[in-house]
């Protein structure tokens, strides 16, 4: 039974999608039940793989249709689940379940729900398949399903023109990325006459020719488009903003993570370019640029979800930097941050969805004072914001700390400094969101908003609790999840050996059976529990002061009079109860860096031609770089 688990967790989602397609649109109860059962089954099957793979250290292989390799030559499709795949699979299948649970009430007022759930399940299934497969072309097909389903779900609210526009942009850019991956796949197949990843890894071991390097460059650019690394990121904010929040969560939580997995699998396991300093520099540089530009753009946004989208880009920069360092510590940090990013960014997108559900807008200039009306959402949002900004007792701090330490130890001290600055700017922009959306003056039209229903709060609470757990017991999480995955990244010989047999592997590798030792010490004197206690004391003191009326002696009131006094605050004067608009909070910073921001606004022109050009230029630059430096 154990060996069938990977295919079962993929297939249950696909069958669920087809059954949902049969159900009539009106029959809501049955459809929700089937969606929940399919996603939950997939999650359970993934969980069941935990014991054999991570605890016992096995690698599951599965040949579809029993087409096992003959004479060391794979002709069928093989699935291979190692610790890295399972690590990604665990949190991806969890976020699929949570997103499905959240969707039921969130999109109840929309039309086209039957299509929504079909596409939702198709996208989830393709991501699971992408993570668990061991075949290059199968990866491409899964990416194709993923891209088209994402495009369709982006344009789900197609009564809004910007949704259709974002869908069109996404399909243009996404297709370019897919084409690059397909071209690389074709080149590799023409060169080696096989598509099996393990066999390719063996053939490519210390065997870099001009053709394989060409394919490598195309793969890097293709997956960078999927991961929305910086010069190719332009479409991401548009898509994340207009998609329903349950889908935005999946975009940043699973589609992006699948591309990160693709980079790890292709560059490190198949191409084994771990020890090439040129490749390290490329990823670290790219990641640093991505995190910096993402966060500065996020500072300038005044839409809740658009801001989150730019933060998503920025946090992916951390992940790229971490895995680019290629030290044990760096890969651990990158993987930990990938996990944390799924949790806290999913949480924040769900908060944005809750705000949209309650008020009908995500524009920060129009929102305000929702903390009185939606206390639980506010609390959850604060947990997410603290996590993403890296405040100690939450999980973001741990992974960011590991990345700082790893980059400093690897000799990239400037990267550490930039990462710290980016973290501060992240906090700044979330202060802006908290101030504009949840605190301050409650606008008159929102005085009747209510807390979101329970089925939407449950997924948010689960993620919030996981955020706290990841910050309090980092050593347990590292030991039982991250270290095995990092080990699998660094040990591609075992990947080949399990899939293709010992004879095949021993033709290429001389160091079979010797796993790399992951040994590092976390620097610093921080104790998570102590930080938690300190945080609790501070929170208690803050609450006490607030309850005793230390901050705001006058009673809370919403503006119920048509008075210019209660309008959005635009100028530099300070007045009682006046609400500073979201875009004006950091006006000083924005003024000082106006040339930079003007330049960035000009680049984000909204024209799909420019965006496509930037992707092509990126491809050209990466090709030049890879051909010049990678040996």
């Amino acid at each position, binding site marked *: 039974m154990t060996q069938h688990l990977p295919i079962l967790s993929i297939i249950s989602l696909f069958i669920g999608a087809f*059954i949902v397609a049969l159900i009539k649109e009106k029959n809501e109860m049955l459809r929700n039940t089937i969606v929940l059962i399919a996603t939950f089954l997939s999650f359970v099957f993934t969980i069941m793989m935990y014991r054999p793979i991570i605890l016992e250290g096995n690698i599951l292989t599965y040949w579809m*249709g029993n087409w096992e390799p003959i004479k060391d030559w794979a002709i069928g499709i093989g699935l291979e689940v190692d610790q890295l795949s399972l690590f990604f699979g665990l949190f991806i299948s969890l976020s699929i379940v949570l997103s499905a649970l959240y969707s039921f009430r969130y999109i109840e007022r929309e039309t086209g729900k039957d299509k929504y759930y079909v596409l939702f399940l198709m996208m989830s299934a393709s991501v699971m398949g992408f993570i668990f497969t061991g075949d290059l072309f*199968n990866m491409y097909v899964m990416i194709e399903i993923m891209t088209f389903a994402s*495009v369709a779900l982006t344009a789900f609210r197609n009564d809004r023109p910007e949704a259709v526009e974002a*869908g069109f942009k996404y399909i243009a850019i996404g297709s370019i990325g897919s084409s690059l991956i397909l071209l690389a796949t074709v080149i590799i197949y023409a060169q080696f006459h096989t598509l099996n990843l393990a066999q390719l890894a063996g053939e490519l071991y210390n065997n870099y020719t001009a053709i394989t390097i060409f394919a490598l460059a195309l793969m890097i650019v293709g997956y960078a488009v999927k991961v929305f690394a910086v010069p190719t990121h332009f479409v991401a904010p548009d898509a994340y903003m207009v998609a329903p929040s349950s889908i935005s969560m999946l975009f940043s939580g699973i589609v992006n993570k699948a591309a990160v997995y693709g980079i790890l699998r292709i560059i490190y396991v198949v191409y084994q370019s771990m020890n090439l300093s040129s490749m390290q520099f490329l990823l670290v540089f790219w990641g640093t640029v991505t995190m910096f530009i993402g966060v500065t753009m996020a500072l300038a946004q005044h839409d809740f979800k658009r801001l989150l989208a730019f933060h998503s880009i920025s946090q992916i920069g951390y992940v790229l930097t971490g895995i680019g360092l290629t030290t044990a510590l760096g890969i651990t940090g990158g993987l930990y941050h990938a996990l944390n990013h799924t949790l806290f960014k999913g949480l924040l997108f769900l908060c944005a969805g809750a705000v949209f559900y309650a008020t009908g807008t995500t524009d920060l200039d129009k929102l305000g004072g929702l903390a009185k009306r939606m206390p639980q959402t506010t609390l959850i949002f604060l947990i997410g914001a603290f996590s993403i900004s890296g405040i100690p007792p939450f999980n973001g701090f741990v992974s960011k700390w590991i990345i700082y330490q790893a980059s400093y130890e690897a000799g990239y001290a400037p990267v550490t400094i930039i990462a710290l600055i980016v973290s501060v700017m992240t906090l700044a922009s979330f202060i802006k969101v908290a101030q504009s959306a949840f605190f301050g003056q409650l606008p008159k039209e929102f005085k009747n908003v209510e807390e979101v229903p329970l089925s939407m709060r449950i997924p948010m609470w689960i993620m919030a609790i996981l955020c706290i757990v990841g910050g309090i017991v980092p050593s347990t999480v590292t030991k039982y999840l991250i270290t095995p995955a990092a080990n699998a990244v660094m040990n591609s010989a075992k990947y080949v050996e399990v899939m293709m047999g010992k004879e095949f592997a021993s033709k290429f590798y001389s160091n079979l059976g010797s796993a790399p030792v992951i040994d590092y010490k976390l620097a610093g004197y921080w104790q998570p529990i102590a930080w938690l206690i300190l945080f609790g004391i501070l929170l208690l003191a803050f609450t006490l002061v607030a309850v005793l009326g230390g901050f705001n002696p006058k009673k809370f009131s919403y503006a119920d009079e048509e008075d210019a006094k209660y309008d959005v605050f635009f100028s530099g004067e300070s007045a009682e109860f006046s609400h500073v608009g979201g875009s004006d909070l950091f006006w000083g910073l924005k003024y000082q860096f106006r040339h930079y921001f003007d330049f960035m606004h000009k680049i984000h022109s909204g024209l799909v031609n420019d965006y496509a050009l930037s992707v092509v230029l990126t491809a050209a630059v990466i090709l030049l770089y890879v051909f010049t430096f990678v040996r």
Partner: protein
Amino acid sequence: MKDEKSLFINIVALLILSFMAFYIYKVSIDTGEGIKITDNITPKMRVADRFLKKNVLDENSTYNFSQTAEDTSANIVTSIVVDYRLFDTTLEVIVLFVTILGFGFVIPKDRRRILKPSVILYRWSPILMILMLMIGGYMFINGHLSPGGGFPAGAIISTAVLIGVLAGRKTVNHKTLKVVEAIAGISIFGIGIASFIIKGVFFQNFLTGDKIGDLFSGGLIPVFYALIAFKVAAELSNIYFEFYEEC
């Protein structure tokens, strides 16, 4: 248009068509080459033979890489597409499904009124449809013996549906197509699960022991091709219904 008249014209058209077909057949027989509709001579060379230098009728001849790899289908391309890499093929069909479903969102529906088609199209569309359906059916039934297969067959069948729409005739409606699509999709995975129950491995060809080159050979390959053809036909026919709304 009255029914008796249209029936009469249809019969006349069919007669003309059958006469033309007979004439072509006669001429080809007379020239000596002939179109062999029924072939009693057992062919010695098949497609696989040409590509892989393997005599498919000889039990002892082997495929380049293995002894057992190609033991089902006479057409090696079909073996690759529907047997070795069946999972990929299924996923490709799903790509088509997702694309057509999703583009209904990206390109909102237009309202469209069908103009009254010309009499010629209206009369001839059933005949053309019959021919197209026959060719499409032939292609997916013989997919494991000769070039062709589920994808082109589905495309041809969907063209027949489209001609019906253009000619203003009622053929199939939106809901039927959706049901066909979903049932074909479920069946593909259902057979995959059936092979799990019978053989213990997903997507394994569990019907074996037939003679290569026969119509009913290749195990599950013709079954899968039929399902793929129906699914592709339903998906491509759906393009019209996804983009236009009749009023």
